[in-house]
């Protein structure tokens, strides 16, 4: 290898708006220009290091790790990692800088001294410490470089030369060369690449505008002076530095010195404090043994063998500590009555089942252990824990930080990247478009993405009113394409909360999260998985919170104790409800699409629910698996298999592949994949990142199949099933744990309706339906609701038993505009005796503001105060309320209100219902449609419940309140609307053409009158709309 040029000071887009290329792009271009080695130094972080490491390994070039450290004065010191201690120090240095409170965040000289060992520093480019010092003269610069040499040691500092054909920079280069000669330090050439190709300079200019919140016109000197900061091959660099040939050779020499790679970042698995006389694996064995005996009654041989195999593997890999920690978390939740359930790949492990982490017996379901843990692939397990969302989950996280925070627990980062609309808006603003053009452009984006982009763009532009002659419009689309998937900033991990364990701060830098007291890694979930860092994903699940509340209400109101783990399995009432698709409020199966398939599938056993949960997913729909399964389920189609020896795998799902595990098994059987290869296939398709990996695995799949004689159309159908599937396929273990929750929620809804609905209403917003619909549905099932009443209601909805009939008392939380603090004050004031009059009520609860009392009065919550005269209406309350808050002054204070009886007329029923909706978003009085039923009946409008009596193909007119509007991507433009009236819900199907004709009424109108044709196929009733009108 001749003395080729290594680019050792590049910058990727992970410097957040300071670099324009992703690590993958930089490595692939470097490989093309046969640059043998590359170092990406991002600002104060190693966010892109894992992706860079993987991409470099594939491209076959040396990946050096390092960063640009911001110093106190604002200068940027580039440092490279020489060995393991260097990497540890780099992570600690960045962590110290990031965690230091206060605005002036930058490394002090003392920081550098503490963490300098194992690191090599460069004097930096125009923004480096040397250049900053040079502004006040050559001597100053000399002093700075001397100080750096003193900190890092003369053998670990290089004077960096960069040439971008700029006079000021040439002056800096000459000065640095002079200093290097005076201090006898080696010179190093680099091109400070901020983007891979010269054409990407435009994108960098845009990002600079976004960073400085300005646009191209006003950015002025912030923009790049020219397009020279791209990756340059050896030929160009050698010619550029022909006066300092040594500087080019130095890059090869320095690259050979940097032997650290991210293959082994020095991560050690977490320890778990084990009682005396035990090591972690022996303790794990004991606990698992105990758990298994409790789970498996009888503890049959198959389970014992499976558990032993798993435990040996876990011990061999040294991950006992990890399992013990997860076990500890689950125990903590159990002790504090917090519902917890493991899911994801963990559900395939018998050990997890025995430890009580997961609730699905993998041995019984014959699940695939390789999915969870396979030594061959070096893929570490990924355990997801479902917790009730809200403050319960926060409690677990707080406890987790307090117990494991010191020794190493942190959340993974959530890198927000440029996607669709956000990219279009920001690029448009940077290009200086006015608001109207901007909105037209972003609307074009949706059209653009929906249709095939190769279609001629000119027509799109013309009808969006944009002219292509304006150069900025042409630039806009190129920049938009280039900006996709570029990281923009670090966001707070929204959904789940992934905690990593082990000595973290020496493996990856940490920085404070937006939530106080929380710490975030600089790598996201997938990076951690790649780097083999053990993590647990804590996901908040609304339904868990509902189940938990329901159980506590049952315990207090019904005096019974219900254990979710041991619900009676095949309860006939529950399955009857499911079969009739009476599932509003039930977990996972309440959506319109589910309701349409439930009557067809006629679920009878638990496994049917598992299938039901998995079937309405993009995977099966795209893979065209849904209809064959339904037909076979109803016996309209014979059960046959893609290939004879797939029979054992697909027997349970009538020959139709629905689950990911089945898919992996199919690959193993048809193409002879091993467990590890199958998992690799799943990861390849599961990954959203790279195209080539998919083609690579697909080729391997086809090769395996042709070897086994599966060829031609049959092979294509199998491959098509697998590819479309792996992307969205739902893991069976996952579906099983969800099915458990679905069954539990259906069971509780059926047997304890009051408790379930109260809990459901306390955890809104959740699921598909608005509280108003849930209340109406419950009332149709005979559940009585009692209105909000200041003398009785709590903040939450509660259950009241009146002569052994249970009814739900609406909570104060449903008064719009009423703060929780004020509501709690009402409840407290109530303890010292009931309120005797509105005036006394407002005096005893000073925290309430005037508007809050007015809302209470208008919602009728004050009507039931004892002191009121009989027949006291809301208007009387309003009349009195106005007087309360007027500062009438002491003189008039005790003047009794001569106007006690209000001169106002009381509300009509319609006004009362409107007030309900206005102030509480729901009503327990009659459904608004009921009021106009007489008038509607005259013009032939049918009630939802009567639809059953109509034959398929008959014309019918239906009306109602729009409660759900869906336009699923997979339904090729069809729109599904649910209309609710006082008797039930009718499903309306709207063809794309009809939708375009009535677009405005359908989108912004909430009350619709629909004429259409009834479709009544095997108990599923819907109306195919032909005409739309307004109510």
């Amino acid at each position: 290898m001749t003395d080729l040029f290594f680019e050792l000071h590049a910058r990727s887009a992970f410097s957040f708006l300071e670099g324009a290329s992703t690590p993958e792009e930089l490595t692939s271009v470097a490989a093309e220009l046969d640059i043998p080695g590359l170092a990406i130094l991002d600002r104060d972080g190693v966010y892109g290091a894992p992706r860079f490491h993987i991409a470099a390994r594939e491209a076959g070039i040396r990946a050096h790790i390092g960063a640009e450290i911001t110093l106190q004065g604002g200068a940027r010191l580039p440092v490279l990692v020489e060995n393991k201690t260097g990497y540890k120090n780099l992570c600690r240095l960045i962590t110290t800088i990031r965690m230091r409170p206060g605005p002036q965040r930058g490394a002090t000289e003392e920081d550098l001294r503490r963490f300098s060992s194992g690191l090599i520093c460069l004097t930096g480019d125009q923004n480096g410490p040397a250049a900053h010092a040079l502004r006040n003269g050559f001597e100053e610069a000399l002093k700075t470089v001397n100080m750096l040499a003193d900190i890092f040691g003369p053998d670990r500092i290089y004077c960096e030369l960069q040439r971008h054909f700029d006079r000021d920079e040439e002056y800096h280069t000459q000065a640095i060369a002079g200093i290097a000669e005076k201090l006898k330090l080696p010179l190093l050439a680099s091109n400070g690449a901020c983007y891979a190709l010269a054409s990407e300079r435009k994108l960098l200019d845009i990002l600079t505008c976004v960073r400085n919140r300005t646009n191209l016109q006003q950015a002025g000197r912030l923009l790049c002076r020219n397009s020279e900061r791209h990756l340059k091959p050896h030929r160009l660099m050698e010619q550029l530095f022909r006066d300092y040939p040594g500087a080019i050779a130095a890059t090869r020499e320095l690259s050979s010195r940097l032997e650290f790679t991210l293959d082994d970042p020095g991560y050690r698995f977490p320890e778990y404090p084990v009682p005396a006389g035990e090591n972690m694996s022996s303790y794990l064995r004991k606990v698992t043994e105990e758990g298994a005996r409790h789970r498996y009654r009888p503890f049959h041989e198959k389970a014992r063998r499976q558990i032993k195999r798993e435990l040996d593997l876990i011990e061999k890999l040294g991950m006992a500590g990890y399992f013990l920690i997860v076990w500890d978390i689950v125990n903590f939740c159990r002790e504090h009555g917090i519902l917890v359930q493991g899911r994801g790949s963990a559900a395939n492990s018998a050990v997890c089942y025995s430890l009580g982490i997961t609730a699905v017996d993998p041995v019984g379901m014959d699940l695939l252990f390789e999915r969870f843990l396979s030594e061959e692939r070096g893929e570490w397990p990924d355990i997801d824990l479902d917790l009730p969302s809200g403050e319960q989950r926060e409690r677990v996280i707080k406890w987790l930080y307090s117990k494991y925070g010191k020794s190493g627990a942190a959340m993974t980062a959530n890198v927000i990247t440029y996607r669709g609309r956000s990219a279009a808006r920001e690029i448009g603003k940077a290009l200086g478009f006015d608001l109207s053009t901007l909105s037209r452009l972003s609307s074009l984006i949706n059209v653009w993405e929906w249709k095939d982009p190769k279609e001629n763009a000119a027509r799109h532009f013309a009808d969006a009113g944009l002219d292509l002659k304006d150069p900025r419009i042409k630039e806009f689309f190129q920049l938009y394409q280039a900006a996709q998937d570029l990281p923009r900033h670090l966001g707070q991990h929204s959904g789940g909360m992934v905690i990593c364990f082990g000595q973290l701060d020496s493996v990856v830098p940490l920085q404070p999260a937006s939530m106080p007291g929380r710490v975030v890694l600089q790598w996201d979930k997938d990076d951690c998985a790649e780097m083999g860092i053990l993590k647990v994903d804590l996901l908040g699940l609304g339904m868990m919170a509902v189940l938990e509340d329901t159980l506590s209400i049952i315990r207090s109101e019904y005096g019974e104790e219900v254990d979710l783990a041991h619900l009676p399995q095949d309860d006939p009432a529950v399955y009857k409800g499911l079969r009739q698709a009476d599932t509003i409020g039930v977990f996972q199966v309440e959506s319109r699409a589910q309701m349409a398939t439930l009557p067809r599938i006629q679920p009878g056993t638990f496994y049917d629910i598992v299938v039901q949960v998995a079937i309405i997913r993009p995977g099966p729909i795209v893979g065209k698996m849904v209809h064959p399964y339904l037909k076979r389920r109803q016996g309209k189609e014979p059960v046959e298999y893609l290939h004879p020896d797939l029979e054992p795998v697909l027997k349970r799902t009538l020959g139709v592949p629905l689950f990911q595990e089945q898919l992996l098994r199919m690959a193993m059987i048809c193409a002879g994949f091993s467990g590890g290869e199958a998992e690799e296939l799943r990861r390849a398709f599961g990954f959203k990142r790279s195209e080539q990996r998919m083609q690579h695995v697909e080729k391997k799949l086809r090769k395996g199949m042709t070897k086994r004689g599966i060829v031609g159309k049959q092979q294509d159908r199998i491959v098509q099933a697998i590819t479309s599937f792996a992307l969205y396929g739902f893991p069976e273990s996952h579906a099983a744990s969800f099915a458990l929750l679905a069954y539990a929620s259906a069971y509780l809804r059926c047997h304890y309706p009051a408790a379930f609905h109260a809990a459901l209403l306390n955890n809104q917003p959740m699921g598909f339906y608005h509280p108003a619909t849930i209340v109406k549905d419950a009332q149709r099932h005979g559940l009585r609701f009692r209105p909000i009443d200041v003398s009785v209601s709590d903040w939450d909805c509660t259950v009241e038993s009146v002569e052994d009939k249970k009814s739900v008392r609406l909570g104060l939380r449903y008064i719009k505009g009423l703060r929780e603090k004020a509501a709690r004050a009402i409840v407290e004031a109530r303890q010292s005796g009931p309120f005797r009059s509105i005036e006394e009520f407002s005096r005893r609860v000073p925290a309430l503001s005037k508007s809050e009392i007015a809302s209470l009065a208008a919602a009728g919550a004050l009507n039931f105060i004892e002191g009121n005269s009989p027949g006291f209406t809301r208007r009387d309350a309003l009349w009195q309320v106005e007087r309360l808050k007027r500062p009438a002054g002491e003189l008039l204070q005790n003047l009794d209100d001569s106007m006690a009886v209000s001169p106002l007329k009381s509300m009509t029923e319609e006004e009362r219902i409107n007030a309900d909706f206005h102030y509480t978003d729901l009503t327990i009085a009659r459904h608004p449609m009921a009021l106009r039923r007489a008038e509607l009946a005259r013009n032939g409008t049918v009630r939802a419940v009567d639809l059953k009596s109509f034959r398929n193909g008959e014309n019918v007119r239906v009306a109602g309140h729009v409660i759900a509007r869906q336009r699923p991507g997979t339904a090729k433009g069809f729109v599904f609307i649910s209309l609710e009236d006082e008797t039930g819900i009718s499903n309306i199907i709207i063809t794309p053409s009809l939708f375009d004709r009535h677009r405005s009424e359908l989108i912004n109108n909430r009350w619709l009158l629909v004429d259409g044709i009834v479709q009544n196929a095997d108990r599923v009733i819907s109306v195919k709309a032909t005409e739309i009108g307004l109510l």
Partner: protein
Amino acid sequence: MFCCIYAIDKDNSDYQALVAFASRFSPLVEETGGDSVVLDLEGTELLNGPFTDFPGRITRLAEREGMAVRAAVAANPDAAFHAAHGLPESVFIEPGKEAEYLGDLPVENISHLLADITVERLGEIVGTLNSWGISTFGPLAALPTTGISERLGPEGVRIQQLAKGKTRRSIIVKSTGAVFSLSERLEHPVSSRETLLLVLAGYLEKLTAYLKAHHLAAAGFELETRLADGSTYARKIQFPSPIKEYRTLKKILELEIEGFSPSSPVTWVRLELNPGKTRMIQSGLFTPDTPEPEKTELVLARIGKIVGQGKIGSPEVENSHRPDPVRIKRFDTGSVFRKNRHMDQSPSARKQPATRKLRPPLAVMVWMGENRPIRVQTTDSGIRKGVSGKVLVSAGPWLTSGEWWSKGKWEREEWDLQLSDGTICRVYHDLQSNRWYLDAIYD
């Protein structure tokens, strides 16, 4: 009795025309809101005829003049205002029957101006009334006043009075501000500039005297003339600091219309001086005597005539990488107190030679050897001296490019050269047009 005239289509009807139209019927005119006027008709029966059919007559008259209006006559201005705005057509309300007419007007129609409260407060009160089921004037009037005052306070009571139409107030007549402007239709039209100047000088003398009487100075002037052939000629000038002397103003006016040669005789002329306060600058004992604003203004105008308007002023460096980022802004002696904003990042410590620009750049022919310039020769250089000679020393190339997003896109490769004829200069190769230019001399 009061009459309110309300312009129905607000956007295109000219409000001043409405006021002028109304003032023909009564001297006391109040401009209420942007779209209506209220007149006090007391004692105008003889002139306008009986009040009962006055609204009808007003509406017909207005239609003839192309204004769509509605009128209402009532015992008090507020009732008339609400009637004109709310009711479908013009109406006469006998005193005492206001409640009948206004009964079913919606509560939202109450104007916050009349009730003398903010729009938000009015909205609040209307909200409360709606929650009480009260939506029109009638029921509101019927509510017990003491209940209203306890609940809605004094504003509530005022609103109730408005609803009853029983308020009692007089109208507020608007007065116009002083305008320093003279305009005249010339009996015998003026055809030459000199005579026009004489006329304008006369106006100028009167106007400056008028300004002096108000202790004001001229901050700028507007000249407008209409010619016989229908064309117009107008000039508008703003001075950085107001000027008092008649002579200076006359000179500036003269310079200003120097270029004006009327194609046909001028029939109508208007001259207006915008008033402005004179600015006294207390020059310190030791501060150097800055050029007086008055004289400078005159000199700048004179030189502007010679070299062209955009060519005189103080230079300003724009924040851009552009090769010649220079702009000329108005020379203002007052700016001595404002810090120069444009000293953005400090110029680099690099020693830089003084530069003289060549605007526009001089086309040159450049011979290259091993991709460095070796000979430079200017072709024609007009009034400016050209350069030619072998390159003794060369530095570069220096690349700059920018504004890739607009038509102002540039991309150039610059060289600093020392030539055998003694010149040290900067030549650049415009990579878009592939031509060489000389744009600076290091001197």
